[in-house]
């Protein structure tokens, strides 16, 4: 059972190793000159505006909340992929499952229309 995940494990290990090797290589061969600029996250690019550890506007809260809820909604629809072929092959349950999913999405769509109409997605 567990051996089927071996390719995934190999891939993860390779990704980690690659990052690590790059890091070590740049440490060995890179020329580091200590200055204020080299301590910044982006050495070449936008100049820093402010500190990172600052309070964020509470307005992001609604966005975050909606993200989480739609995440869960996706999750409940996710298992369809596992049985889609089987479901569509079974004549007896085909219409039934289709209507069931339509009902589920329809109720959620009403929730979406509600937030859209309320302007929850607008920056106020």
């Amino acid at each position, binding site marked *: 059972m567990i051996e089927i995940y071996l390719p995934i494990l190999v891939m993860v290990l390779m990704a980690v190793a690659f990052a690590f090797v790059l890091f070590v290589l740049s440490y060995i061969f890179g020329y580091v000159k200590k200055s204020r600029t080299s301590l910044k996250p982006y050495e070449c690019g936008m100049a820093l505006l402010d500190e990172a550890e600052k309070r964020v506007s509470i307005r992001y809260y609604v966005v975050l909340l909606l993200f989480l809820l739609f995440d869960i909604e996706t999750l409940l629809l996710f298992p369809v992929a596992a049985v889609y072929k089987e479901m569509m092959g079974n004549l007896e349950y085909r219409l039934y499952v289709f209507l069931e999913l339509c009902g589920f999405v329809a*109720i959620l769509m*009403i*929730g979406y*229309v*509600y937030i*859209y*109409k*309320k302007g929850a997605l607008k920056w106020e």
Partner: protein
Amino acid sequence: MFSLHPSWTHLLTPEIALLCFSIIFLVIAGLKGDKNLRKGSLYLSLLCLLFTLFFVIQLFVSLPDKEHISVISTSAGNASLLIDKYSLLFKMLVILGGFFSLLVSQKELDEENAWTGEYFALILFSILGMMVMASGADLLTLWVGLETMALSIYVLAAYLRRKESSVEGALKYFILGALSSGMYLYGVSFIYGATSSIHLKVLRAQLGMMITRGGIENIPFPLAFGLVLLVVSLLFKIAIVPFHFWTPDAYEGATTPVTAFMSVAPKAAGFAMLGRIFFVGLIPLYDILIPLLMLTALLTMVWGNIAAMLQSNAKRMLAYSSIAHAGYMLSGVIAALKAKTDEGITAVLFYLFVYIFMNVGAFSVIIALKGNGEEGDRMEDFTGLFKRKPYLAIFMTFFLLSLGGIPPFAGFLGKFFIFMSLVHSELYLLAAVLAITSVISIYYYYRIVCNMFLKEGVEKPQIREGFLLKSALIIMTVVNLFLILFTNRIFSIMEKGSIF
């Protein structure tokens, strides 16, 4: 074999209708409409609930007695949704509770200037959740119904978002409610691990098998642990001591019509779920359940009444008194568990029916007192009410005497049937405590009556109730006064809600 009942659309009409109705209110909430539309939606919501009630009653009449129709059966052949007279009666009670809470909410919404479409949508959604709770037959369906109800009510409890006490009470309610939901799920996962089923029927069969083989000792530890968590989370939902701490703050903070709703409808739904789980699933365990529940019921009746005496706020007092009432109803459940007959269940159903009228009535008088920048829920707000508004004072007296259980008011009948069921199942201790604590409760109800009639109040500007509140008060007073004439009729209806 997985199957749907051939006439499932007919059996689920109330739920489908209610879902459509609540979606209408959601759309209204989304519209940038004027205030009149929102005010009109109050009447519309009352109409919707009447329609749903009509559907439920029509189903109730057409269904044969003592039959549990399984609407959805799983592949293994277990029912996951049951329509029977038990569930339909609880659905009626829940809808009635919602109906009266909406009927009294016009004035409060005017005062707070809080007319929104969400108010109605959330109340209808929570009623939908309670209806699922009444007819679910597996632990998962019951949980989804419970959460739908609870989430709507958390939001309703925080309905006045600008008021600190409202948000505080709602937050306390939310955190403790989330904890109890977590406990429920944790318990269910242990139960599933031990029995590999979440269906109440299967649970009952397996518990029965284990007990016949080796007695209570034979129940494996994980199952016992899961069952304890399950029972605790159920007791939490109906606010039984020692799981009652959220009640006073949530009740005090919420806007009064919502408090009235919270005190009747979720309680009815909670008892429906508790009854279903106990009498379908856990009945083989009655040997241990009865002493445990008796202890909590005794604590609830005693502490609820004692704590109610110490309150200086009428809403907090009613919150504690509602805890005590939950204790009375729980004793009815214990009677049914002990005697294994429907008598206790009938008494609980009757009590819940009466409780809607007396409790929402008492809260609606508090709503009527609100105005001119005063909340109307302090004890002093009642002083001299008889001089200012004689009929309000008289109505309040009726409601309070009914809550105290004084004949010939409706509350007396509720307590009487529970008392009788306790005596018939030989639970004399509970019966005695019920009688004694009822007498104690009259003391604090009488304090308000005393304030209204005997004390001189300061001169205050006139209060206006509005048509809906007035009619609601009159209906509830009439029911409280004259229910005794129709006792047999209503009792015979409640008798049909049989679970055995």
